[in-house]
C-alpha cells in the first residue's frame, strides 16, 4: 500500500493499538495489497478510552467486557456482581490493554 495511505490510517487509528505495535503494523500495511484497503478502513476498532469510561460506569455489570467482545468473561463478571467487586477494580486498569489487544487481533487477518 502507498505510504501516505498507511500513515493516514495510523494517524487516525494509532491510538487504538499498543504503541510498540504501531511500527510493526506500519511495516506490514506497507507490504499489504491495495485491495485490502477498504476492508482495513472499515474495521470496527474499539476505542480504549470509551471502554475505560464504560468500565468505570458499568464495570460491575460486565458491560465493558461485552463491549470489546469478551462475551464469556462478560457473563462471568455479570453473574458474580463484577467478580466479587475485585475484578471490577482490576479491570479499570486492564480494560484499555484488553481493548488494544482485541483491536490487534481484529487487524491480524488483513495484514498477514
Amino acid at each position, binding site marked *: 500500500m502507498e505510504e501516505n495511505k498507511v500513515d493516514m490510517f495510523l494517524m487516525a487509528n494509532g491510538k487504538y493499538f499498543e504503541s510498540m505495535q504501531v511500527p510493526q503494523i506500519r511495516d506490514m500495511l506497507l507490504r499489504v495489497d491495495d485491495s485490502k484497503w477498504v476492508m482495513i478502513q472499515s474495521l470496527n476498532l474499539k476505542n480504549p478510552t470509551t471502554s475505560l469510561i464504560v468500565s468505570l460506569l458499568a*464495570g*460491575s*455489570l460486565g458491560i465493558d467486557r461485552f463491549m470489546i*467482545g*469478551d*462475551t*464469556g*468473561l462478560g*457473563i*462471568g463478571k*455479570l*453473574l*458474580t*456482581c*463484577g*467478580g*466479587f*467487586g*475485585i475484578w*471490577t*477494580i482490576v479491570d479499570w486498569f486492564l480494560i484499555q490493554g484488553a481493548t488494544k489487544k482485541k483491536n490487534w487481533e481484529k487487524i491480524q487477518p488483513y495484514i498477514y
Partner: protein
Amino acid sequence: MNRNKLYLFVFFFCLTGYFWIGYHYNKAADFSIKKETTSFDFCLFSSLTGVPCPSCGMTRSVTSAAHGHWISSLQWHPLGILMFLAMLVFPPWIAWDVLRRKNTFLIFYQKTEKFFQQKPVAIVSIFVILAIWVMNLFRYL
C-alpha cells in the same frame, strides 16, 4: 484468550467462589424468602448507587443449592443453580483437560461465546437479565 490463560483464570475464579461460598455457607441458615435489606458489603454497584444489581441474591442462591434447597435457590436467583453447576463442573473439567492435554473446555467456551453473540440469543438473554433485575429491585427496595 489462549487456553492456559483461560484455564488458570477460570480455576482461580472458581477457587475464589469456593472461599466466598464457604464463608457464607453457615450464615444462610434461614432459606425462606422475605423482603429484606441486605448489607451490600462487596458489590461496588450497589454500595455506590444503593440499587441492587442483577446478580444480587446469587450468593444466597448458590449456598441454598449447596444445602440442597433447590426451590429457595431458584427464588433467590433463577440462575443460581446454573452457577452452582458451573462451579461444580468447571474445575474438574479443566483438570481433566490439563491432564489429558486436550482443549475441550476451550472449545466449549468459544462455542458458548459464539452462541451468546447471535443477535436473537443476545436479545433474549438481555431481557432475562433485565427481568431478574426488576425482580431484585422489587425485592430489595
